[in-house]
């Protein structure tokens, strides 16, 4: 079994205008930088992007927004992005805001064969509009539907040709959940290792969820909010 592709360009083959993509990451942490660059170059448009955030003006999904390649964003938090704001206020960009836990659960459900589930998040708010409400143990819950994507694109620390993945630090976030929910899931990794190098006991995402994998290059790993304390 060998899921290795040559690089981002080959990995995104088959992504066409109008498709739905999931992109892992929280803020700029754990985002698939190489594939985002390749998507910008490919010129695909009318994308629906499911991602917790929308990048910043000149990095992450902000790069696709600058080129007007995104038709709709499905996210939980989209601040820190002037171009996003401009497109949203002018009506060029559709935005569906989802509570963060519901977004995570909807991706996980999508990859797990669970079509929908009930959650208390958003009851009594505008998120609940049009959704079925059901009481369990005396408490109201909303029916939320699973999310899937034509392609899911995730970023991991290490991976092997079977598609087994290991994430580093809080760069894990949405990546393992979205990995499960793509018809085709692409993993870009910082380091491609030989099968057996990853301890089976510690693998975060089993290879079954991954169809294409490659070792990315030139990771910038930009920090959005550098906060430090002085050395004592």
């Amino acid at each position, binding site marked *: 079994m060998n899921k290795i592709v040559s690089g981002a360009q080959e990995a995104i083959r088959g992504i066409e205008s109008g498709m739905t993509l999931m992109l892992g990451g*929280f*803020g*700029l*942490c*754990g985002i698939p930088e190489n594939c985002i660059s390749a998507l910008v170059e490919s010129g695909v448009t009318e994308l629906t992007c499911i991602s*917790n955030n929308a990048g910043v003006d000149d990095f992450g999904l902000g790069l696709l927004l600058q080129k007007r390649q995104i038709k709709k964003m499905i*996210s*939980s*938090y*989209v*601040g820190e992005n002037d171009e996003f*704001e401009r497109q*949203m*206020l002018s009506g060029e960009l559709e*935005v569906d*805001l989802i*509570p*963060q*836990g*519901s*977004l*995570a*659960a909807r*991706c*996980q459900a999508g990859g797990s064969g669970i079509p929908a589930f009930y*959650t*208390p*998040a*958003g*009851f*009594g*708010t*505008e*998120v609940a509009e049009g959704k079925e409400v059901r009481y369990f143990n005396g408490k109201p819950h909303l029916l939320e539907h699973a999310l899937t994507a034509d392609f899911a694109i995730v970023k991991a*620390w290490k991976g092997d040709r079977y598609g087994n993945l290991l994430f*580093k*630090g*809080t*760069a*894990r*976030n*949405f*990546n*393992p*959940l979205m990995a499960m929910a793509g018809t085709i899931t692409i993993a870009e990794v910082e380091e491609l290792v030989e099968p057996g190098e990853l301890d089976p006991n510690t693998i*975060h995402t089993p290879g079954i969820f991954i169809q294409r994998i490659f070792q990315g290059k030139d990771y910038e*790993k*930009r*920090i*959005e*909010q*550098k*906060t*430090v*304390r*002085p*050395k004592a």
Partner: protein
Amino acid sequence: MLDKIGIAKRIAQELQDGWYVNLGIGIPTLIANYIPKGISVEFQSENGILGMGPFPFEGEEDADMINAGKQTITAMPGASIFDSATSFAMIRGQHIQLTVLGAMEVSDNGDIANWKIPGRMVKGMGGAMDLVASADNIIVAMMHTNKKGKSKLLKSCTLPLTGVQCIKKVVTNLAVLDITPDGFKLIERAPGVTVEDIKNATEGRLIIEGDIPEMKI
């Protein structure tokens, strides 16, 4: 009257040994600096870490280690890292003993509004709706009035809601108040603040029973 640090210090007094705590952005984040002596708590950040430590030393920041406010952080000994679904399982499954978050408005029946102002750019609710819908011990940390001097403790919220009937306690620059079926119950006054000051700054139903003690900070 308290400043933001004072509010954080007062809420820190609520912490109990062994608790898992989720702190929101703003005043709540400051609470981590004032954990009472002899108490051990673990901080959860909903992007996927339990046992969050202080900011790193200059030069030691790691792009792969951030909190939900996207700030660079460190991990304490005994920390664990997990995906977003596991993180919200902790929250939704009520494994977290205390949630502290900021608010734009709180009503006297425990509704909270803290994510959206109509006519302004909407940034999104992030994890706030999941947190308030599930946690059973939620404290709001905020100023008692807004920048125009209008009360943020209301009969009913005017802004789009984040959650309904979920807030249990509010700590402001003026007072500590519990939310009861009959409204805001005044528990403590901030140093130098009178009951009259609090009455004037509270639009929602306010319950005052007996002498109201001054906070000890």
